């Protein structure tokens, strides 16, 4: 069974082009996250997959079936909305029954009394499905309540329940956790990932929260300006971003993007330090060096390869301590061990050294530049 395939999807609203030819192959049973800042087109893409929005161009295939002209109701997908979109006048159980009633029951079978008389078996079947799903989500006691009487987390579960009762090809989720408080969000992250493992169904998850993308997905597609900049498993996106924008978007605190100078032989000078690895001399000139806070280490003395500056702010998270260091023209965040750095105060001068092999270089256009060990670089140039 194949998953969902997108082929050169474009979409414009008036003159503004929000999707610029998206190609995406979503595997069956995969948890794929579309992540990006607001306005990058991720929700629009999800709604195009759902069929709630028509693409300007390109094709959507679900299970190898082209669905361009197929309306949302007939695509057999389920969606969880940011606002949950539960029907406020129906109880949780009635909300969960809606997709089953509309699909399984005929017009007369939905009538209050006659329906049960002519299709009692079907009604019993629906009730059984709701009961089963409610047990999985542990919302059994809530079934008779209306959405207005539920907390945010409970509504979220009810919305999930409504999506789960009929076995859809895929779940589409549009920022389902963004209305929850921070603690519940972390909890639901783990629960959603577990649910995905248990169900084995494709999840397409839209979020602007890089932490959700990193923690839950099998693969994540980082979108910006209507394009997918990188599609890879979370670890790969974090460790090996293809683009400066991706590197800056993924990771908290943000990666340090330091202005640097590549000499004509490819050596990189960044804020007084020189990196051991070099860039292809063709890229000589202004470049950007990306250093994640955990890839900088505090050293006691100024020395070769250190970057120095004054502490302007310290953030103690308990397990980690982030020092904001003023290194002249810009600021840099360094992660330190809270114990080792406990004596540091704002205003103190600190020295940090990049861990070998971890720095990333980005060209003027933001594209990732390959860094090479010095000896080989010279040989390559000679050869």
């Amino acid at each position, binding site marked *: 069974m194949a998953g969902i395939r997108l082929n050169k999807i474009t979409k414009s609203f008036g003159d503004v082009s929000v999707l610029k030819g998206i190609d995406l192959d979503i595997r069956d049973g995969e948890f794929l996250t579309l992540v990006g800042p607001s306005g990058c087109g991720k929700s629009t893409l999800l709604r195009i997959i*759902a069929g*709630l929005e028509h693409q300007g161009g390109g094709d959507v295939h679900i299970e190898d079936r082209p669905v361009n002209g197929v309306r*949302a*109701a007939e695509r057999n997908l389920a969606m969880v*909305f940011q606002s949950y979109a539960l029907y*406020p006048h129906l109880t949780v159980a009635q909300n969960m029954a809606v997709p089953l009633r*509309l699909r399984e029951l005929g017009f007369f079978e939905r009538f209050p009394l006659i329906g049960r008389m002519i299709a009692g078996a079907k009604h019993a079947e629906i009730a059984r499905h709701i009961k089963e799903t409610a047990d999985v989500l542990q919302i059994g006691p809530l079934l008779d309540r209306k959405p207005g009487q539920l907390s945010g987390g409970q509504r979220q579960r009810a919305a999930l329940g409504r999506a789960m009762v009929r076995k859809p090809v895929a779940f589409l989720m549009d920022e389902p956790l963004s209305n929850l408080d921070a603690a519940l969000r972390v909890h639901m992250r783990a629960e959603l990932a577990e649910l995905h493992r248990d169900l084995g169904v494709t999840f397409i998850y839209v979020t602007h929260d890089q932490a959700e993308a990193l923690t839950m997905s099998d693969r994540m597609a980082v979108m910006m300006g209507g394009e997918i900049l990188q599609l890879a498993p979370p670890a790969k996106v974090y460790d090996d971003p293809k683009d400066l924008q991706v590197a800056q978007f993924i990771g908290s605190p943000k990666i340090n993007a330091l202005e640097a100078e590549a000499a004509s032989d490819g050596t990189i000078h960044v804020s007084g330090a020189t990196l051991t690895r070099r860039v292809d001399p063709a890229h000589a000139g202004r470049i950007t060096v990306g250093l994640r806070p955990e890839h900088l280490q505090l050293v006691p003395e100024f020395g070769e390869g250190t970057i120095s500056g004054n502490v302007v702010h310290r953030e103690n998270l308990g397990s980690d301590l982030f020092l904001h260091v003023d290194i002249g023209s810009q600021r840099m965040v360094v992660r330190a061990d809270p114990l080792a750095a406990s004596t540091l105060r704002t205003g103190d001068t600190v020295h940090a050294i990049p861990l070998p092999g971890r720095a990333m270089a980005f060209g003027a256009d933001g594209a990732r530049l390959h860094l090479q060990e010095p000896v080989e670089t010279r040989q390559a140039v000679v050869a």
Partner: protein
Amino acid sequence: MPRSRAHILFVAPAIFLMIAILILPIIVAATLSFTDYSLGNDSFNWVAWKNYDRIVSRSSFQKMFTATLTYVLVVVPLAVGLGLGAALLINSVSRFGDVYKTIYFLPVMAALLAMAIVWEFTLHPSVGLINQTLARGCGTWLEWFAFFRQGCERTFPLWLGDRDYAIWTVSFIGVWQGFGFNMVLYLAGLTSIPRELYHAAEMDGAKSGWERFRLVTWPMLGPTTVFVVTITCIRSFQVFDTVEAFYPQGGGPSKSVYVMMFAIFEKGIQQNLIGLGSAITMIFLIFVLGLTLIQRWLVERRVHYS
């Protein structure tokens, strides 16, 4: 600690105004309804339930109830239904929505007394637009209908002058005048329905417009409907200007359009029977109060979300 009495001072102006302009007049009217007082008299006699007795037993007042209830039962469903229908249609068109809104709202804004002249002319038995148009159908297949055949043989109805037609004609004008207001209320109700609910309905498999209406639109318009029905009911009970404009002599052909408000006006003001007028007013008040209580009950019970 001594209890402060400031709270009494804070609510005093509102309480005073409420008593002076709402509660007191009702009490006065209720008291007068048990007397034979006439404006200008120095004294009055207590007549106990005599005024109410007259209302219940006299045939002209039975006609009053018939006319009023007929008017309400015709105007409320039609004005609400047409208002909802027009709102749904206007909501679904992408162009000219504002034009339709303006057209349907025009009768609401127009003074009914002025419009009555237009209607009187339109409904005139011989030169009126309606009967002239109907007369053009004579001699065609339309004569298969009994109504048409009789109209052509003798004359088409005297819409305002025939006691079989008068109350229906007045009701029709009431619908014409009132449904635009309901349409505006429904349009406001429609814009407050979250778009995502329609998307959820589509994802859940609601394919036809009827399914979407049953699942989302109608339940979400519940609070609007309760309000619209109540306000239309009260306005229908209060109908007066159409009757006064068409039948200033009182109540239309055989008192078939003798509605409550007109009865109050005729007895209490024209004939200066303040006691009798007050008694009708009290009955009117009980009707309206009952409606309002039903509305409150519905709002609390059935259509209160959030």
